[in-house]
């Protein structure tokens, strides 16, 4: 590899003359924003009516035109919360939607039924992006050279890829996908000169992210990240809805859902200000006071604190080490959330930058730098991959190749070998998640390496390399070492896991670690037993004449016993019998070796053998 031309610190190898135009886009579940940054500072761009927030809602008319935002909300049929569908299979989506999903055989992602025909979530997101980009273009009075789009830190591979695809459809040049908490840290770090070990607590409408970052002298380093892709302010609404239903003792009709959720949301906002709120619904009147409301939402807040503890542990830091806590996302306006988070971290919270806008502002700053404007600004973002990446091995186990919270970009390689004699094809299955079994992780891609030269089992060495780029996107390459045979793939995710599994993956990984460990041991022992059986059977089919009848019988008995034990599911027993059979085959193996050497040397003189 040639040496990169490394410039002096502070001087980048870019063209200096031209001012370029870039935008930061926060593509949210409920609302989206667009911001711009220049040497004068960063600001959110509002629409003609002065509204900064664009509701993330799209409606299609029969002629195929799309309207986005408030206008779409007023349309009878509209698509909301499309972010929840990004990179998901139809079976992942468990919550009720106001629109119909159709399974798609080609892409894996479900399609949405609209008046203008079937639309994919990626297309719908693209409509939102187009409106935001147009707003930016109009304000700046220039074409947009590039954008930075934010994604939840906890977004997986498939969700990131879908977001990037949406930008491509909208005709935007994506400079970078940026984690939302990281974007918020950039805004605070650059505008408020924040330094130290900083917690970014980001509770939005539908998702929760927490990142622990080290900020110093323009370097923003993510130490650990965690969260829950299905926990947000919407869940507070749902808790109130549930309470109203119980109090009013009514069974909710389908058409009442929208009304009740609006009432619940209003009550939630009012309780941020007042001690109690009067609620009227379907002929019932009641009062919800703060004390009771807090009982409803405390378990939800507790879940966010649990994720905070995990992040502290992952980064091996204590609460005392945390210098600042930054609050991001509309749901952090709740006084109860603030009270709980402040008491957990034992310090006052930072929320001087509007929690709805801070992510877009940070994205705009990063966009301005990446597009090449801020030459003298030394800014370096070191992000991590949120979930472990691995490959399937024998026995449906996942071998982790890049563990979670590894700084990206990163490339790692691991060697694998063939299981059978003469095996010429190896299938590779790429997975993401924390658990040990394939079925508990998210399947990202499958591909095959064909044409491996036939060799005895275990002789071929296939090096599998993973490369995660700065956007957190993965490509995988497999190469057979002796032949140089290569196969590679940029991961285009396959879907199939249930949403619940993704959300609880990290948590479950710890609860089930023990169970997994036992299962892993069993699987490993089973694989080892199969390997021994395979090897001995193959050897017997060629060289059984090297054994006396009695020896052959003992060996076959050992084989039979191990095959029988394999069905038991008892890891210890399988290991015991595998070892016993291995022991029995030692003499046989030695004799085969002798015989092979003799055959090889037959008819050759010493000189030839030497060569």
């Amino acid at each position, binding site marked *: *590899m*040639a040496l*990169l031309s490394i410039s002096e610190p502070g001087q980048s*190898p870019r063209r200096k003359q031209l001012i370029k135009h870039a935008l930061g886009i926060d593509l949210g579940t409920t609302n989206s924003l667009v911001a711009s940054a220049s040497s004068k500072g960063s600001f959110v761009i509002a629409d003609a009516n002065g509204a900064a927030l664009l509701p993330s809602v799209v409606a299609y008319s029969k002629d195929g035109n799309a309207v986005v935002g408030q206008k779409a909300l007023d349309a009878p049929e509209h698509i909301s919360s499309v972010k929840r569908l990004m990179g998901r299979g139809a079976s992942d989506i468990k919550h009720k939607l106001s629109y119909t999903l159709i399974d798609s055989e080609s892409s894996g992602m479900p399609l949405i039924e609209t008046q203008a025909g079937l639309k994919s979530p990626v297309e719908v997101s693209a409509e939102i992006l187009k409106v935001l980009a147009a707003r930016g273009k109009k304000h700046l009075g220039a074409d947009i050279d590039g954008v930075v789009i934010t994604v939840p830190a906890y977004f997986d591979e498939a969700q990131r890829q879908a977001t990037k695809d949406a930008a491509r459809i909208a005709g935007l040049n994506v400079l970078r996908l940026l984690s939302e908490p990281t974007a918020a840290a950039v805004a605070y770090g650059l505008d408020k000169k924040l330094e130290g070990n900083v917690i970014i607590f980001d509770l939005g409408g539908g998702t929760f992210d927490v990142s622990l970052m080290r900020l110093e002298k*323009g370097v923003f380093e993510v130490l650990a990240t965690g969260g829950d892709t299905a926990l947000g302010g919407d869940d507070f609404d749902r808790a109130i809805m549930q309470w109203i239903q119980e109090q009013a003792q009514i069974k909710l009709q389908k058409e009442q859902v929208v009304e009740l959720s609006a009432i619940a949301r209003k009550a939630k906002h009012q309780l941020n200000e007042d001690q109690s709120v009067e609620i009227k619904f379907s002929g019932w009147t009641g009062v919800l006071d703060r004390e009771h409301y807090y009982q409803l939402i405390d378990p939800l807040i507790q879940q966010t604190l649990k994720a905070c*503890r995990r992040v502290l542990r992952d980064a091996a830091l204590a609460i005392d080490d945390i210098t600042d806590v930054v609050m991001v996302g509309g749901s952090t306006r709740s006084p109860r959330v603030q009270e709980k988070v402040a008491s957990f971290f034992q310090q006052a919270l930072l929320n001087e930058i509007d929690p709805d806008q801070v992510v877009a502002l940070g994205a705009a700053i990063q966009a301005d730098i990446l597009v090449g404007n801020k030459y003298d600004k030394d800014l370096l973002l070191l992000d991590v991959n949120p979930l472990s990446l691995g490959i399937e091995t024998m026995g449906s186990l996942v071998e982790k190749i890049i563990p979670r919270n590894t*700084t990206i*970009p*990163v490339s790692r390689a691991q060697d694998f070998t063939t299981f059978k004699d003469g095996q010429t094809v190896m299938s590779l299955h790429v997975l993401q998640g924390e658990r040990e079994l394939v079925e508990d992780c998210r399947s990202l891609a499958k591909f095959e390496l064909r044409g491996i030269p036939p060799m005895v089992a275990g002789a071929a060495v296939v090096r599998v390399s993973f490369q995660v780029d*700065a956007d957190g996107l993965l490509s995988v390459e497999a190469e057979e070492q002796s032949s140089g045979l290569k196969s590679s793939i940029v991961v285009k995710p396959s879907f199939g896991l249930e949403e619940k599994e993704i959300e609880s993956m990290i948590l479950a990984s710890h609860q089930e670690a023990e169970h997994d460990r036992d299962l892993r041991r069993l699987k490993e022992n089973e694989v080892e037993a199969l390997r021994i059986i395979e090897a001995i059977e193959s050897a017997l089919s060629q060289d059984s004449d090297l054994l006396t009848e009695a020896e052959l019988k003992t060996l076959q008995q050992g084989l039979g016993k191990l095959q029988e034990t394999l069905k038991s599911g008892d890891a210890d027993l399988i290991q015991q019998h595998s070892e016993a059979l291995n022991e029995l085959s030692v003499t046989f193996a030695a004799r085969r070796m002798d015989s092979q050497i003799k055959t090889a040397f037959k008819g050759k003189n010493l000189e030839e053998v030497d060569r």
Partner: protein
Amino acid sequence: MTIANKNYFEIFSLQECFDLNMDKLAAEYKNLQSQIHPDKFSDADDVSRLEALQLSSIVNDAFDTLKSPLKRAAYILTLNGINPEEHNQKHLGETLLMQQMDWRDQLDYATEEEDLDAIEALKQEVIEERESCITEFQDCVNAYNFVDAKPVYNKLQFVEKMLIEINRSEEKILDY
């Protein structure tokens, strides 16, 4: 010499030793990344961007390896022609195997009883053992005695594994 051809110590202009100056390592790491990170080449041509991606990945890996005592120890052994993963239970020695069983019993019992104090005490004991392993490993490396450093590494490996299990038990009890 290019980054790709250097060993991890050379990448950060550090002398090859076990007892690293961690502050210097971190400072060098950030200094390098601020020059080669792909973000610094976002409007450069494809070849430069690919090179930035590869170099930045190498530097991340180098930093990840050197900042962890266990990975650093394994790396030093590899540099000196010793395969750290070549496992041999006999290397661990009988005393350690006995200790291993004893520790595991203590942990199982404390976990069952949800006795956090007992777990904490055990953790301190294991951490002390880790410190002594690190010192021992360092002495071997300073004396260029890599053959004797190998079993110390395996011991350290086992101690670190024990610490992970202790942490897991703790997390289980605290319901993290």
